[in-house]
């Protein structure tokens, strides 16, 4: 039975709990994300959204419950192995390699599953194909002239863009986006939204976002978290119509 469910979905969480000491951050979380779906996760601050991402990506261990990724039980699998299966993520606070150049940042993303990563005696710049691919990625968002600059010296918006480029560089099967537009001015935020909307590769996305215009623009389905529990799960219309959500989160505004 487990296998049957698992093969049909990209991501399935069942009865997931996470406690830090006596503090229960996630309680009995269960939902599934289909292949190709774009799922939004919303909820007030402290609802456990980022913890949920950390549990899915394997950064912190579960207290109980199971996580299935692409048909495999990954509940006890370390983060790097989940990444190798095709899971990729961005972080709420920009998490790049500050003293490496923009190109080097992307090369690290691109070579992660290549045997070349153990190559010791050839300069990494001599792997032309990978180098060019990194430049193409930067070119896609108009950052080609920043290629040789140290990431630390780039602007905040530029770092956010590289954060996303790094996550999609290897065409993951499941992409977790933790507030990709956080702290960006409107113009840059819409660049990011366009980047996500225009992705035609059929990549499955799970998106945490506070900006409702981004959420309603990008996702097909929503999961609403409140104090570590899923209080609603469904299509945009269903969520809009849900009394519970209206009361405790959206404040009747939608």
């Amino acid at each position, binding site marked *: 039975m487990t296998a049957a469910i698992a093969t049909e979905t990209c991501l399935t969480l069942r009865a997931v709990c996470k406690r830090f000491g006596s503090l229960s951050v996630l309680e009995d979380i269960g939902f599934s994300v289909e292949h190709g779906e774009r799922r939004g996760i919303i909820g007030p601050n402290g609802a456990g959204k980022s913890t949920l991402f950390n549990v899915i990506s394997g950064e912190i261990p579960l207290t109980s419950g199971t996580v299935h990724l692409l048909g495999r039980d990954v509940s006890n699998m370390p983060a790097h192995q989940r990444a190798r299966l095709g899971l990729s993520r961005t972080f709420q606070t920009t*998490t790049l*390699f500050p*003293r490496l150049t923009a190109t080097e940042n992307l090369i690290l993303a691109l070579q992660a599953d290549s045997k070349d990563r*153990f190559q010791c005696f050839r300069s990494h710049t001599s792997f032309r194909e990978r180098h060019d691919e990194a430049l193409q990625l930067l070119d896609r968002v108009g950052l080609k002239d920043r290629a040789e600059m140290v990431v630390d010296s780039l602007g905040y918006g530029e770092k956010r863009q590289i954060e996303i480029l790094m996550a999609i560089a290897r065409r993951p099967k499941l992409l977790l986006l933790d507030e990709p537009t956080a702290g960006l001015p409107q113009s840059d935020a819409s660049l990011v939204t366009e980047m996500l909307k225009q992705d035609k590769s059929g990549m499955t996305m799970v998106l945490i976002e506070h900006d409702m215009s981004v959420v309603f623009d990008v996702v097909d389905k929503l999961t609403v978290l409140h104090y570590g529990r899923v209080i609603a799960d469904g299509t945009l219309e269903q969520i809009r119509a849900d009394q519970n959500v209206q009361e405790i989160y959206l404040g009747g505004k939608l």
Partner: protein
Amino acid sequence: MRRGLWLVLAAAALAIALIVPRAGVPVFYVSLLTQTWIFAIVAMSLDLLIGFTGLVSFMQAAFFGGGSYAVAIVATRYGVTNFFLLVAIGIAVGVLVAAVFGLVALRAEGVGFIIITIALNQILWGLAYQWVSVSGGDNGITGFSRPAVGPFDVSDNAGFYHLCLIVLIIVLLFLLALVRSPFGLVLRGVRETPRRMRALGYNVWLYRYLALLVSGGIAGLAGVLFAWYNQFVGPTNIALDQSTQLLIMVILGGIGTLFGQVLGAGIVVFLSNVLSSLTGRWQMVLGAIYFIIVMYAPDGLIGLGRRMLRRGQGKRVAPVPIDQKVPGMAGEET
């Protein structure tokens, strides 16, 4: 153009270094330079960990001393005199110590890692100090000499000086290639942001472990040379003091520069020998000099040089504070 200039400078420095023992330089200084080359090798191996992998380790003396004890024991007990075999044994023991200690130390990160490396280094020192039947205890091991390298006799000062210089150059070229390779890029990624590396699919533990093995092997190799240099091995070779001194060499020269470690080793070796012949309070003076360098050139002498070059071109650059260069020291989340 600039690359060409550097190549010419490097070649000139190398030529000068090569003729030193034949140019009438007093034996005292030839011997200090020999020591410098040996310590530069260990300091570079430590810089691979600190400057390129983000691991601040106080157990480098254990790898170094392990290599020293290995050749001394094998040479005196089993009469091995083959240069290449002894070198291989020294490297292997350095790698082995790193492999065992790494399993323990890499269970922690940041400050925890530093503390464990101090403890592990003390354990090996205690073993050398107290396991008298094997290590000779405080008396150490004597009674072995510098073996010939194939047809070349290196038992005299000049010959041994050249041997150490050549090994230094080989190790420097090896490490320069390594840090520029894809593997080296991975190590730098691990240094910068381990969390992101995991999210990209890199097994951070494995790369730290591999860096420790490489570093242990190189330190073991230097240990072999140091045993031959003194023709004596004792517990001081392995003491925590030694690890600390290596760390000072790495910082003085400039973390993450490799070339800087040659400078750093030279400064420590020359200052401690020259000052101690001038004054009884030489350690105080030495401390003050270290303090001044770290205060005013936190990025080391290579960093200071770079900044002065750029200032000459009309650009002002601030130094990178030391705690930002070394992840463990900032105590940040990894």
